[in-house]
């Protein structure tokens, strides 16, 4: 053993039983081609999707493939969606003020089945109506943000149908409710 002053070592009172290690990892995605087209369409005020030519399922945002029929999809399978539809299911979220939570009052997240050719949007806001009036079957239409205020920066491969940078939400149209039978197999 060498007789040197070791300034990096401090004698502790007790053995080490726990240590902290803080880490963060930063990932950056390249937006995939079908989602890029979805973003471009949103900026124009359009909702697009891909429809499988075999099972006819509608994928919004477009995936680039149909997992049911295991075929690749591209622009040729692209369709334009309606921006109105029917609330099929919803939940009311009462926000807890955790870090990053921007909401302060209870709000709705609804699943909306768009009118033909179809397509299901999940986690959509329903606006211009008291929360206790939101119900399955309610007819709604998209409230687009003004064109120069639309922001698609948050839309990437992992964002699903989070559209709040482009849509203010969906508001009731006042039309008669859609009968439950028409969407009971599409409740998400």
């Amino acid at each position, binding site marked *: 053993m060498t007789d040197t002053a070791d300034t990096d070592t401090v004698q502790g009172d007790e053995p080490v039983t726990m240590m902290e290690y803080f880490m963060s990892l930063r990932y*950056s995605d390249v937006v995939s081609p079908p989602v890029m087209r979805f973003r471009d369409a949103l900026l124009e005020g359009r909702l697009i999707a891909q429809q499988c030519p075999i099972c006819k399922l509608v994928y919004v945002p477009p*995936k680039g493939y149909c997992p049911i029929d295991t075929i690749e999809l591209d622009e040729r399978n692209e369709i334009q969606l309606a921006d109105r539809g029917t609330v099929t299911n919803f939940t009311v979220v009462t926000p807890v003020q955790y870090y990053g939570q921007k909401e302060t009052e209870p709000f709705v997240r609804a699943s909306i089945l768009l009118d033909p050719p179809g397509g299901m949007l999940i986690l959509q806001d329903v606006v211009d109506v008291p929360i206790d009036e939101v119900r399955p079957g309610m007819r709604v239409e998209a409230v687009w943000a003004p064109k120069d205020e639309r922001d698609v920066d948050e839309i990437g491969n992992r964002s699903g149908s989070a559209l709040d940078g482009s849509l203010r939400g969906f508001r009731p149209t006042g039309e008669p409710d859609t009968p439950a039978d028409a969407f009971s197999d599409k409740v998400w």
Partner: protein
Amino acid sequence: MAALKDVAIIGYAQARNERRAQATEVQFLFPVINEALEMSKIPRREIGFTCAGSCDYLSGQTFAFVMNLEAVGAWPPISESHVEMDGAWALYEAWVRLQHEDIDTALVFGSGKSSPGPPAEIFPLQMDPYTLTPLGLDPVSIAAIQGRALLDAGKVTERQMAEIAARSRRDAMKNPYAQVTGDFDVDELLAQPYIAAPLRMHDIPPISDGACAVVLATAEKAREVCERPAWIRGIDHRIEAHQPGMRDLTTSVSTRLAGDAAGARSAPIEVAELSATFTHQEPILCEALGLGDDVAINPSGGALAANPVMAVGLARIAEAAKQIVEGGHGRTVGHATSGMCLQQNLVCVLESD
């Protein structure tokens, strides 16, 4: 261990490796799985078992491995499993599963999208969390320690390392899936600066996004659908101590044990596809497997030409199978590795009829 029940590779496919794929992992898996199934002539719905290898940390997406199943066709539900390892270990699990005899085919795939994250920060997280992870010991730095140990032991020279890189990149010119290819002069490579001494850029694998898929079949099924199957004559994997300071980094005991158990030395090998992700690891692996100068090493360009983490080992087995199915060879070996500095190794010996 030596194969109990005959199992063969009857289909394989790979993605073209890219530094930064614009497609998502599922999107670039799609054509790979479709192509492997097509080659095997096994209808998708008849596949008895599916096993995948991938790592959610790479792309930083929770349950990415579940999403990858969308490329398989998992509805109606299928029988499947996943290993948080290179797809070569998924192949091992599928091979074990086929020993049960109640199914006759299996689909195996490995995929990885390394480009979204910082590999030098992600990989230290697989080290022990008390003494090594906080040091930020990344794969290139620790490989440099291994390279230095090898140079000091006189087992390799920097020139030999550069020659391995030049040969790999030249061979990779014929590989449509490779990422780093070309004709390079050894002296010019040696004139390049060190990245982490004694490693230069050519000693280090590229960062790759890629995937590989393989279809396995039992003997009866393989003979029914395939003219020239690549038979798995032996497959084995061994692991060494997690702490790299506890082993001699200039040799690979686990590769030697796995190779011996798989029968690598029991008859001459014609072609070897080795997961030597750093140039200096090639001589370590050749020594461990008893491969002499007469063996063609990594005719695909190997892991130095493309390193799709979680798929690169399975791709070596697929390339070794290709040497039998398409290349007319009689006996080849595929090798996969996991962990830092060849900590864990899998050896798969393949033969023609």
